[in-house]
């Protein structure tokens, strides 16, 4: 390919002779082909990572890269904007049909997601918070419709978002609405990085320190701690009290001090899917194959076209 660049450069003028558009299309095709070729290998590496990472149980998962499979549980009450469905996560896209020179295509006019809201993942051993920011979500659309009824909640939502539904006078634009969401109770696959949230750790420490200080200041409670009745609270007796307080603080909502999300500088991809591991691997495999072979064929085709235009091939 590199050696092909020399005659291409020498005959650059021939590429731009007459109608230059085919040359640009061929160059764009060559670039896209190379992009898909390399992207295919990246997808394949991720597929192997998914295959090679055993699924952890939530109660015993370690910090670092984890693969989890469990049921989604709401942390905040969310409603999907297009369908009004209760969910733990949503993403939506509103597109408008636009007429190009030769073809019609869809242009996004509004999109959004609830990625700022974490949700819980629960298996039969425990639960953990999942922060979906920067996740690659592999969800099939739950709702896709062209020009649905825009009265009611959907119309109000569009007005709220400032989406104009009219093209000219009373004529309506052709709009396509797509929504993806994860419902409470749905089984979810997650590959990400489990990490302690710095803020939560500090908040937990402060809460424990406050409770211990309050205990020390209460003579009656301190007397109750003196289980052997020797008139003083020994180190062991104090340790029991401290442990009880730690357990109480953790029960009171600090169970999400560990969160699964996109790890910083970890190199681990962050996937959320509503399918199981097998289906995720299968999808990655065909995507990788299609990308590598499709990218190579597209590149070769475009390269052949460029060489033909400069008269080197089939000239």
């Amino acid at each position: 390919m590199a050696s092909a660049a020399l005659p291409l450069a020498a005959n650059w003028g021939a590429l731009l002779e007459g109608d230059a558009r085919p040359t640009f299309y061929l160059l764009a095709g060559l670039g896209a082909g190379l992009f898909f070729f390399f992207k295919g290998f990246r997808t394949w590496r991720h597929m192997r990572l998914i295959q090679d990472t055993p699924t952890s149980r939530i109660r015993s998962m370690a910090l670092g890269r984890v693969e989890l499979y469990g049921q989604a549980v709401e942390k905040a009450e969310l409603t999907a904007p297009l369908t009004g469905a209760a969910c733990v996560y949503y993403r939506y896209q509103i597109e408008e049909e636009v007429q190009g020179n030769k073809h019609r295509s869809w242009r996004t006019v509004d999109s959004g997601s609830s990625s700022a809201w974490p949700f819980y993942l629960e298996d039969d051993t425990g639960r953990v918070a999942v922060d979906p920011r920067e996740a690659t979500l592999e969800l099939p659309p739950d709702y896709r419709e062209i020009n649905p009824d825009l009265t009611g909640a959907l119309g109000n939502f569009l007005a709220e978002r400032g989406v104009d539904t009219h093209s000219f006078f009373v004529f309506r634009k052709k709009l396509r609405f797509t929504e993806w969401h994860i419902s409470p109770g749905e089984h979810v696959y997650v590959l990400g990085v489990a990490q302690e949230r710095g803020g939560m750790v500090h908040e937990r420490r402060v809460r424990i320190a406050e409770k211990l200080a309050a205990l020390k200041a209460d003579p009656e409670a301190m007397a109750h701690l003196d289980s052997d009745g020797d008139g003083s609270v020994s180190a062991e007796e104090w340790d029991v009290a401290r442990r009880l307080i730690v357990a109480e603080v953790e029960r009171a909502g600090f169970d999400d001090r560990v969160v699964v999300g996109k790890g910083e500088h970890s190199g681990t991809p962050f996937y959320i899917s509503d399918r199981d591991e097998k289906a995720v691997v299968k999808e990655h495999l065909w995507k990788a194959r299609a990308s590598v072979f499709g990218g190579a064929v597209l590149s070769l085709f475009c390269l052949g076209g460029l060489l033909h235009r400069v008269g080197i091939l089939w000239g």
Partner: protein
Amino acid sequence: MSWIILAVFAFTFVGAVLYAVGLYNGLVNLKHAVVRAWANIDVLLKQRHDELPKLVNTVKGYMQHEKEVLTRITEARSAYARASGPEQQAQADAEMRGALGRLFAVAENYPELKADTSFQMLQERISAIEEQIADRREFYNHSVNVFNVRIEQIPDVFMANLMRLEARELFRAAEEERRDVEVSFP
């Protein structure tokens, strides 16, 4: 035409290099995943090890006639401190689980001990650690299994041979744990 043939060769070569790099990095990743899975068990074994003196101090006041049970715990703890490497640590862990199981069974005969808050907390904590160790053992074995299968499979076997990778040992249950439990009915 020769340009296209050259380009096809170039793509095949680049593809083969990327594939080989992917296999190599994948195996390196697996090798470290096994080490990490073991280290994650070790963290819990150490946590349990640190809880034991508190447990022994709590129970010895109540169980003065159960010296054999307490000695077994202390010996198992020392065995763990001496153990090095997964195999020896697995052995020490099995001894410790046996000793703790015996202690908690004997504790059933001491209602005052069972009512002791400190003992209840320690028992709860150690049981929770035991459950986590069991999960992580399973996780470790799964990691080892993936690694061992990969290094024997084509095409990974060629890269694994170049890297001189060898199969890892599973964390096996001790002989006494595999023995059938005898249940007798009156």
